[in-house]
């Protein structure tokens, strides 16, 4: 055990005192029952670098924090000495609208960045849960995504360059600031989704898009998950240019606009961006497909409500009282079946279940709540293991994104890496041999 | 002496009949030719690709390697289908370079006694002498009809001989009773007379594909042309040229130039793709400064493949119905050497009842490639097998093509695989349709 008062003093020479937090103020940075000895809020990458070089030299374990919106992802840290708060790195460094690119610091929130871009009629098509608070770096580290991944992909597709501070404080960059680049290894891909275990993202260059002329969407409600799934695959099997295609099931249906009053097991949200004529065509054809598949009701979402709908689709499975959250992945055609199985399993456990799936990518965001007596940790852990087996049987996986500490202690957040665990461990060994960065939190104990 | 000159003096390429340096260095090694080359498609080996073969030519030219047996084997495996020429953005005249290269290779790698004997007989003693070919054909017909052929086949005696003699024997095309050939006759135009054309009789076509020859004559008549089959003509020399026996090919070219120009036809019609492509390139065969150079140019301007010729006319479309699923195999020397792919399909589509289906790799060589099926039997078989799979998939009643080598090879492919359907020349099908139309009127 370190001596509580000496640790903060290590950083006094490299950070102003208001950037070093200790004592009482550390409670918000509690993770799985662990509280760090110091929380540091650097203002620029040099400060991040000097912090890490100190931690490296002193053998301290660092947990990076962005907006703190997805800290439930990953296992409990093996060690936790320093909370590294990155929201101070929040500047837009370069923005040339005509180039459709921007370079920003990683602690900038998506909402702030988006506001800047909208001034120029552009946007960043990343819309994961927690849009208001989540930072770009956090989205990248966790590879979070939302409904728009259907058309625009994820952070992996939008990021063209990255600056990283390594475990020993070295700063390196990869990629560039232009939209096309194959010079050197594509390190962006390695850092994105690595949960800060290889390096801390401090800056990123991004591709941005012109704002669509308008947005349109429809919501179709179905009597069963199966029929909604058929309709979704039906839309996916056409050449319709859809911006999002999300299958909603269980409790999440009630979060949808108009969803309260509908007695449906599932819904399908279909969105389109662009000029009026193509949007009309998408909605017309999608309506026909939904009707053919037995939709109980198809409602057109008014143009100015589409953004809100997208927000709901990102947030729905994680409503207020949700205790368990998970991301499941399967092939698109298995999505509806998986959700159905999840619903049945949840029923068996008397858990309330809601899900939103971005079906073309086979990503299912799920959330569960339950009555007090039914939610003991062991029961939840058993449930998760069972759910994970169901996903595996479909060739998929389950990643736990949020659960009470008691549950997290009983069940691994990630499950197995599907391939290349040895390579992943080698990478960690190369980049962070002494375990400075988020030790123990990643796949396979990395 | 500079290094380059030293290299040049060490080159195995000698004399004027070698690929020119200008041509050799037109290849920028981009590789766009790879995926259309049948031997590369089959092997995946750069050495069996056009780019690889050109690279070897360059290496020989620069004196980096000699024309060894291995080097020659890669050139020999080339079908000269010239699919690479179509794919080449730099305009490398590959076919011409390969012919010149083979002439060079013959000097350095003359081959075994039996190879040389085969070459001597085929290219010097048979092809230039149509009379001898006719005689052979008549003997073959007697052999086939006497029951001796089936006896030999059944005895399996030929399996004792090396190579695929037994297979070649069993698959020999049936020689018809009537043999086509040059004559002084004029086959008169039917209906309104538009002009006069001279038809190449050639070497193999008139012996085995009499029907196709007669059909060609009738189709041309039907389209308003007097047809002559000029006396004094002979084999076009294509096989000789491809094999590198350019002197003999040249003599044969000159003979044909004289024979055809004497008739002053409006066009010289060829129904055999290989012959047409060579005849369109007679100018490349004739030595510079030869009195034949000018005549060759006039000759070349007149040469037309029968498919090509017909579609430039307001041609008579198919008349009578032929209910059949038809697939078309592009003869290499029509599709690649002459760049004619649409004309035959256009003709076929006009026949009522014909459903034209495209098979996979329709423009990839079937493995016949002139004398290739004899000189490179094993590889020819490999390509035939590949073709057979595509034929089976297409499931056509009729396989149409426009070259004798392809006709033989495709029929053999169908026979060997017990696939239904027949193989015929595009013009035969058109002729059939004309006749069906006339008889139903």
């Amino acid at each position, binding site marked *: 055990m370190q001596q509580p008062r000496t640790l903060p003093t290590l950083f006094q020479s490299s950070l102003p005192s208001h950037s070093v937090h200790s004592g009482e103020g550390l409670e918000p940075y509690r993770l799985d029952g662990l509280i760090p000895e110091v929380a540091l809020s650097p203002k620029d990458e040099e400060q991040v670098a000097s912090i890490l070089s100190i931690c490296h030299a002193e053998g301290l374990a660092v947990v990076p924090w962005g907006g703190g919106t997805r800290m439930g992802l990953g296992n409990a840290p093996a060690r936790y000495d320093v909370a590294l708060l990155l929201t101070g790195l929040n500047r837009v460094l370069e923005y040339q609208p005509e180039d459709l690119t921007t370079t920003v610091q990683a602690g900038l929130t998506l909402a702030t960045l988006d506001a800047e871009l909208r001034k120029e009629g552009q946007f960043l098509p990343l819309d994961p849960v927690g849009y208001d608070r989540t930072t770009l770096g956090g989205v990248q580290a966790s590879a979070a995504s939302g409904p728009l991944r259907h058309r625009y992909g994820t952070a992996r597709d939008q990021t063209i360059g990255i600056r990283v501070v390594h475990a020993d404080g070295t700063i390196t960059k990869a990629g560039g600031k232009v939209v096309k680049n194959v010079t050197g*290894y594509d390190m962006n891909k390695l850092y994105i989704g*690595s949960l800060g275990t290889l390096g801390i993202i401090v800056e990123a260059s991004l591709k941005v898009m012109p704002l669509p002329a308008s947005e349109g969407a429809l919501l179709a409600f179905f009597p069963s998950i199966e029929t909604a799934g058929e309709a979704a695959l039906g839309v996916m099997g056409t050449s319709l240019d859809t911006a999002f295609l999300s299958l909603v099931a269980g409790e999440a249906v009630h979060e949808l606009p108009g969803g309260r009053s509908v007695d449906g097991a599932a819904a399908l949200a279909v969105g389109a961006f*662009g000029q009026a004529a193509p949007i009309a065509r998408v909605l017309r054809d999608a309506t026909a497909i939904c009707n053919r598949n037995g939709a109980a009701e198809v409602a057109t979402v008014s143009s100015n409500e589409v953004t809100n709908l997208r927000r709901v689709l990102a947030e729905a499975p994680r409503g207020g009282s949700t205790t368990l959250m998970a991301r499941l992945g399967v092939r698109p055609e298995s999505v509806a079946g998986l959700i159905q199985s999840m619903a049945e399993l949840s029923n068996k456990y008397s858990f309330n279940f809601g899900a939103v799936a971005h079906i073309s990518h086979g990503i299912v965001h799920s959330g569960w709540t339950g009555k007090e007596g039914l939610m003991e940790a062991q029961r939840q852990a058993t449930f998760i293991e069972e759910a994970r087996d169901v996903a595996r049987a479909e060739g*998929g996986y389950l990643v736990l994104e949020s659960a009470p500490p008691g549950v997290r202690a009983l069940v691994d957040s990630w499950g197995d890496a599907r391939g290349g665990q040895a390579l992943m461990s080698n990478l960690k060994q190369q980049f962070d041999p002494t375990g400075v960065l988020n030790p123990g939190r990643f796949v396979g104990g990395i | 002496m500079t290094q380059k000159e030293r290299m040049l003096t060490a080159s195995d390429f000698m004399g004027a009949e070698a690929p020119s340096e200008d041509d050799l260095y037109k290849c920028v090694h981009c*590789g766009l030719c790879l995926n259309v080359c049948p031997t590369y498609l089959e092997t995946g080996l750069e050495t069996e690709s056009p780019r690889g073969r050109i690279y070897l030519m360059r290496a020989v030219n620069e004196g980096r390697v000699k024309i060894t047996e291995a080097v020659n084997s890669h050139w020999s495996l080339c079908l000269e289908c010239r699919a690479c020429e179509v794919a080449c*953005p730099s305009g490398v005249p590959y076919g011409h370079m390969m012919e010149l290269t083979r002439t060079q290779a013959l000097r350095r790698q003359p081959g075994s006694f039996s190879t040389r004997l085969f070459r001597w007989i085929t290219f010097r003693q048979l092809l230039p002498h149509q009379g001898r070919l006719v005689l052979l054909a008549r003997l073959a017909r007697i052999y086939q009809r006497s029951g001796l052929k089936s006896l030999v086949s059944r005895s399996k005696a030929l399996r004792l001989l090396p190579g695929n003699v037994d297979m070649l024997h069993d698959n020999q095309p049936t020689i018809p009773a009537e043999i086509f050939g040059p004559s002084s006759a004029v086959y008169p135009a039917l209906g309104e007379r538009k002009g006069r054309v001279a038809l190449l009789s050639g070497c193999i076509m008139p012996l085995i594909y009499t029907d196709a020859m007669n059909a060609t004559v009738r189709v041309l008549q039907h389209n308003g042309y007097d047809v002559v089959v000029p006396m004094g003509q002979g084999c076009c020399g294509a096989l000789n040229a491809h094999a590198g026996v350019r002197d003999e090919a040249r003599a044969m070219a000159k003979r044909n130039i004289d024979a055809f120009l004497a008739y002053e036809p409006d066009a010289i019609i060829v129904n055999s793709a290989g012959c047409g492509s060579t005849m369109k390139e007679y100018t490349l065969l004739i030595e510079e400064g030869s009195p034949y150079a000018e005549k060759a140019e006039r000759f070349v301007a007149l040469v037309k493949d029968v498919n090509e010729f017909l579609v430039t006319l307001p041609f008579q479309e198919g008349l009578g119905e032929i209910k059949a699923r038809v697939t078309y195999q592009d003869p290499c020397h029509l599709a690649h050497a002459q760049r004619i792919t649409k004309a035959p399909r256009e003709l076929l589509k006009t026949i009522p009842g014909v459903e034209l289906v495209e098979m996979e790799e329709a423009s990839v060589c079937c493995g016949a490639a002139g004398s290739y099926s004899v000189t490179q039997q094993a590889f020819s078989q490999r390509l035939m097998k590949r073709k057979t799979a595509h034929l089976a998939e297409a499931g056509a009643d009729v396989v149409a093509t426009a070259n004798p080598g392809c006709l033989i090879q495709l029929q053999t492919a169908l026979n060997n695989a017990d696939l239904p359907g027949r193989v015929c020349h595009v013009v035969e099908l058109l002729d059939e349709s004309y006749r069906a139309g006339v008889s139903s009127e």
Partner: protein
Amino acid sequence: MKNSSDLVKQLKAIVGDEYVVHLPEDLLVFERDGSPENEVPRLVVLPDTTAQVSQVMRLAYENGIPVVPRGAGTGLSGGAVPQSVSILMPLSRMRRVLDVDVTNRTAVVEPGVVNLDLSHYTEKYGLHYVPDPSSQKACTIGGNVGENAGGPHCLAYGVTTNHVLGLELVLADGTIVEVGGDVRDAPGYDLTGTVVGSEGTLAVATKITVRLMPLPEAVKTFLAVYDDMDTACSAVTMLIGKGLVPAALEMLDNLTIQAVEPYVHAGYPLDAGAVLLVELDGMDETVKVESDLVGNLLAESGAREVRRAETEEERQLLWAGRKGAFGAFGRIAPNYYLLDGVVPRTRLLEALRYATDLCAERGLGLANVFHAGDGNLHPIILFDERQPGKLELAMRAGGDILKKCVELGGVLSGEHGVGLEKLAYMPLMFTPEDMKAMLKVREAFGNDGLLNPDKVFPKEGEVAEYIPQSAAVLNAGTGSYI
């Protein structure tokens, strides 16, 4: 090290006699890919299955022999050029499409499948594989994965890495590993994304899971003819600035037109200063609306003529000129040096002017044919090596142009890769620390200098210094560069 005849025997036992190349005259044929660099390999081996790849690599690894993987050998940066000590391993025999999953819109292919063949194969399902390098008729998906290949249609739809979902890999020591797959975002590092574009230095991909996209309902292609390059460049900036992201936006300058027009007869006016190819695709309604918009914008952009391809045949013809451009330079100059720099789209004109002035000043020809929409330049320096000093001059000019690209905020390579060709320029973009981080990845994949060695990263000691020409090119023999 084993003697060669033993090695040949063992390799033949793995892949079959026909597929081990060991005669000196045969090996010579494998000394080059599509680039200027060349070196004759020790042996060439063509495996047919993953198991064979693994066995070959294990054998090589145990004997300390480097292996250089190769697709069709159409690469332009020397990524598949072997060393005299190496085994060159083309994957051209592994050309089977293993699976097409129509519902999930994915396909699993072997690395030797030719790019365009895949799209032809999936056409019957109404699907295609989007990245379309100019060499797509010959280049392989495996090679595309190695180089993270681009192509004209990558402007709207992304490059290879955006379309590859999973890989079966063979590591330097022969270990077989599967990463990624048709189930997305699986737990763990994005090893698929890390390997794509690593130029065959991390692993050999033996199976590739790709994403397929629906064939567009409608395609509209415009050819805008300009009197000069400046006007054409401003048109590009204007189109992008209007929020349009066409499927493709390609430019050809006058010299390129001179080279390709006699070959394709695409109808490019020989006296045009530049032509711009603009392609829109997607739903009928989208294309209709956008083509009216683009038609008007082009008309106002100072184009002296705007044509639309009315038929598929006309469209193919317009594209034939673009896709065959590089090969066609053989018709106007005996040698050329092709660059691949990228600049921000707003700096296109600046970069082009710099290159034009520089080449004019030094008596070199310069043609430009490039992906204008994403700022990916392809300056082509034309010269005749028989004129003394021209080769060196051309190489130096190339270096200077790349340097300028980096100064303008760009990068060395947009789609061709670093390979051997741009090794010396890497320090222009990356610090020694940047490169060390990348080399850690190579270490992690267990490449002890035995998998495509001496590529991408300059050797230590050479790292700090910018060398203004590629030494390998300068040392090359007659005709050994393009």
